[in-house]
């Protein structure tokens, strides 16, 4: 039984899913935040699952969705929550020119691979899996026959590998507490001794239209008190920028100077909004 071409429906599925998969891959390497990369990879995995199913591998397609998008990518997201939001890439190159050389090498590798595959596979007839799937009554049955027959030893070894990996992860993630937990008293004594922030940190700014935690408080001289915004937001760069003109206007109003001249923009009660930021 030979199957040289594929149906039009399959071609449509292929092109849609191929474009989605490549988009996800590009999103992985182009997005600056690791969380966005993880979501892009999830898109790639799902489109690959559809491609498996289109390739007469329904079992692998389901396993792909369950194992990759269900377990692996969610594990990545959990670890991203542990490792923190400030883990976006630094733009400093440790090795000079490494980025350019890396892209060039990878592009050359890709061209070589695609050309080699293109020339090696043209004219190879595709047999199709219909006969192999039908032999034992279906795709799952056929794979089970191979897994628990010919590949039984490999299957057992892989099971051992999985258990070892789980134990290894437990060992690596476990942290032994070497010193007793520090009490609140010790912590406060240490804070007073270090002398930099004895009291609580300043609260975020509260203004007429913004009192969200990303709005920094202003010091009496109009400068931003960065410390008033929670650390994770600061690390992510999610500080709401302060409109300098509005601050100056407020200052002028407070000192009574602007009351005489015509105001060319509305009275600023809101140092938290900058005109160029559409939120």
């Amino acid at each position: 039984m030979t199957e040289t071409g594929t149906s039009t429906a399959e071609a449509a599925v292929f092109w849609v899913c191929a474009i989605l998969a490549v988009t996800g891959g590009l999103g992985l390497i182009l997005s600056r935040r690791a969380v966005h990369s993880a979501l892009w990879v999830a898109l790639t995995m799902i489109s690959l699952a559809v491609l498996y199913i289109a390739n007469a591998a329904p079992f692998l397609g389901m396993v792909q969705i369950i194992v990759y998008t269900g377990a692996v990518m969610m594990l990545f997201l959990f670890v991203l929550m542990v490792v923190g939001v400030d883990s976006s890439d630094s733009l400093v190159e440790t090795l000079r020119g490494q980025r350019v050389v890396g892209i060039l090498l990878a592009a050359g590798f890709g061209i070589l691979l695609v050309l080699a595959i293109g020339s090696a596979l043209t004219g190879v007839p595709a047999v199709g899996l219909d006969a192999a799937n039908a032999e034992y009554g279906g795709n799952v049955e056929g794979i089970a026959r191979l897994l628990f027959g010919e590949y039984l030893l490999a299957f057992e070894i892989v099971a051992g590998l999985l258990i070892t990996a789980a134990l290894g992860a437990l060992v690596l993630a476990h942290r032994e507490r070497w010193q007793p937990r520090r009490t609140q008293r010790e912590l406060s004594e240490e804070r007073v001794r270090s002398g930099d922030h004895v009291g609580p940190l300043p609260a975020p700014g509260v203004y007429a239209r913004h009192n969200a935690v990303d709005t920094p408080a202003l010091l009496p001289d109009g400068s931003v008190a960065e410390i008033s915004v929670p650390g994770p937001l600061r690390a992510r760069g999610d500080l709401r920028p302060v409109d300098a003109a509005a601050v100056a206007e407020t200052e002028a109003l407070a000192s009574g100077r602007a009351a005489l001249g015509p105001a060319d923009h509305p009275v600023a009660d809101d140092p938290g909004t900058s005109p160029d930021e559409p939120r």
Partner: protein
Amino acid sequence: MNPENYVVLAAVLFTIGTVGVLVRRNAIVVFMSIELMLNAANLAFVAFARMQGNLDGQVIAFFVMVVAAAEVVVGLAIIVAIYRSRRSASIDEPNLLKY
């Protein structure tokens, strides 16, 4: 459309994963790029299985998935352990073995 298009797509995805490994500095992103490369290899296996009319390719792809899952578990645990001691997930940081 020929079934070999699947293999070409796998090559493209593998290349994208290579770029990610070579260019990105965040250990987790590098790890996800490796996952992408493994998936590209899986797609090639599945396509070859179909072209050869033989289910062995699908069984190998299944094994690759299992090994990839084990690798993810251990690798992420290592990344978390390094993050705890170094407070960083950059692959430029851990250079203790260098000297």
